[in-house]
């Protein structure tokens, strides 16, 4: 049987999409475990250790419990929106994984198969668009709960997202000015051979990092759900798997942000001396994938490390930081980058 090229491409892409999805989900699942363990070690504890050896079955136990827990839909809530909220959060979180270049290309049967679901030429924009949709999940969920704490959480989430998306975008513009492309695949390729963007855009990276924390609702920016003030924030009224979706979405977002940062600033799947090792292309791709995940895990660890170290901001301070410090700094960064580009060219 001779499949046409289109069919082969479709199969490739489907497989890659599924694998990417599965990996995203798996990593998100085990991020919860990692979070517990990392928190435990940072706090001189041992963390879960009774569900399976070293407690590695802990996420499965949580999931199993979630599935069989009673679904409560408060009768004062808007039922449709209440259900759709976590769905949106989950969906948008998953969709971003499509444009991340997970690795170089594999050569199978004489064909080059890039390890990326799709290399959109506006990949960066796509990620932005989808991520900013994510806040709808939180907002709708929080509003539909008909609970004041949830509403406050939802309001905080949306204003925080909007404020930080701006400086995030501005931080990226400086990078894009430098790279001249919006395609993630190309941005990675440009960084080949240790030529990482972090060396050219340290300030931009710092800004981007801070914004990523804010976008993922992680401490010190976890105001939408901060326990001590808003009980559970937007997910106060959620139980069982719907709550699971929200939490999942948070971890997926963290994973995607890490991947995004690794792609944009840390060379993605590139690693130093990759061209001088003299390995075959497939090996380099495989090592590249592993290196990429190593970078991602480092970022995830950093996310958690920060969370268990720092206190959180207050709502107005968060806004002030966003508007009064981040945006001017991002503009300054653009200005500097522009100047340097002008001068060097």
């Amino acid at each position, binding site marked *: 049987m001779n499949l046409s090229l289109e069919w082969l491409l479709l199969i490739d892409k489907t497989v890659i999409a599924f694998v990417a999805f599965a990996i995203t989900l798996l990593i998100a699942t085990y991020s919860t475990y990692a979070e517990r363990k990392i928190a435990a070690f940072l706090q001189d504890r041992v963390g879960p*250790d009774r569900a399976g050896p070293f407690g590695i079955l802990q996420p499965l136990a949580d999931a199993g419990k979630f599935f069989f827990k009673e679904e409560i839909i408060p009768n004062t809530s808007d039922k449709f929106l209440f259900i759709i909220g976590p769905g949106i959060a989950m969906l948008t979180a998953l969709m971003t994984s499509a444009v991340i270049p997970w690795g170089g290309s594999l050569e199978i049967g004489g064909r080059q198969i890039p390890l990326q679901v799709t290399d959109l030429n506006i990949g960066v924009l796509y990620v932005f668009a989808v991520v900013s949709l994510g806040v709808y999940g939180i907002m709708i969920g929080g509003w539909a709960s008909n609970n004041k704490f949830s509403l406050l959480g939802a309001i905080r989430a949306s204003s925080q997202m909007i404020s930080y998306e701006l400086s995030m975008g501005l931080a990226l513009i400086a990078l894009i000015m430098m790279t001249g492309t919006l395609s993630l695949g190309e941005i990675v390729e440009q960084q080949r051979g240790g030529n990482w963007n972090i060396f050219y855009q340290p300030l931009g990276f710092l800004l981007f990092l801070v914004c990523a924390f804010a976008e993922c609702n992680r401490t010190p920016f976890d105001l939408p759900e901060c326990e001590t003030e808003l009980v559970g924030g937007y997910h106060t009224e959620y139980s069982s798997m719907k709550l699971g979706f929200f939490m999942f979405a948070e971890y997926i977002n963290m994973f995607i942000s890490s991947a995004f940062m690794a792609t944009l600033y840390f060379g993605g799947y590139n690693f130093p001396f990759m061209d001088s090792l003299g390995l075959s292309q497939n090996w380099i791709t495989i090592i590249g994938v592993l290196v990429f995940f190593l970078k991602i895990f480092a970022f995830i660890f950093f996310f958690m490390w920060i969370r268990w170290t720092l206190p959180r901001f207050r709502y107005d301070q968060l806004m002030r930081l966003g508007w009064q410090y981040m945006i001017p700094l991002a503009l300054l960064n653009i200005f500097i980058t522009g100047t340097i580009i002008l001068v060097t060219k």
Partner: protein
Amino acid sequence: MSTVKLSEAPEGLQGEGFFATSLSKVIGLARANSMWPLPFATSCCGIEFMATMGSNYDLARFGSERMSFSPRQADLLMVMGTIAKKMAPVLRQVYEQMAEPRWVIAVGACASSGGIFDTYSVLQGIDKVIPVDVYVPGCPPRPEQIIDGVMKIQELVKNESLRRRNTPEYKQLLASYGIE
């Protein structure tokens, strides 16, 4: 590491690539290892609960470190401390807001029976308003005793059938407390 008692795999038919067990057991095991507590801490026992959550005892080992202050998300209501008559309706409301399956543990003398506070203002045991699964004696109990209580609950959870919450007996139990 070897000294830690792992949760055993549920009994089932084990063969090559073949593992069957009843769903109840698996879910029971999952639930038991993922009990999210709602700390209803009112007084002294709450401080000992903090110690239990702290580094030296670490309740997280049992999969219970994620405290859910929202009753919707909690599986285990830990009542720690004196429950005054003024508080009783609140406690009951929290219990009602919890999603099934839910378990209750009465930590300490005050929650279990009133303790030394045999007074006009104190509820003489929370089992007057909500059903209690496990009692932990002590005033306040040591963290060891609290962990003991949580492990007792885990035993209970592991062996509970999936259908128990729909049985007439359970409904009758709730009805006897006036909870619909």
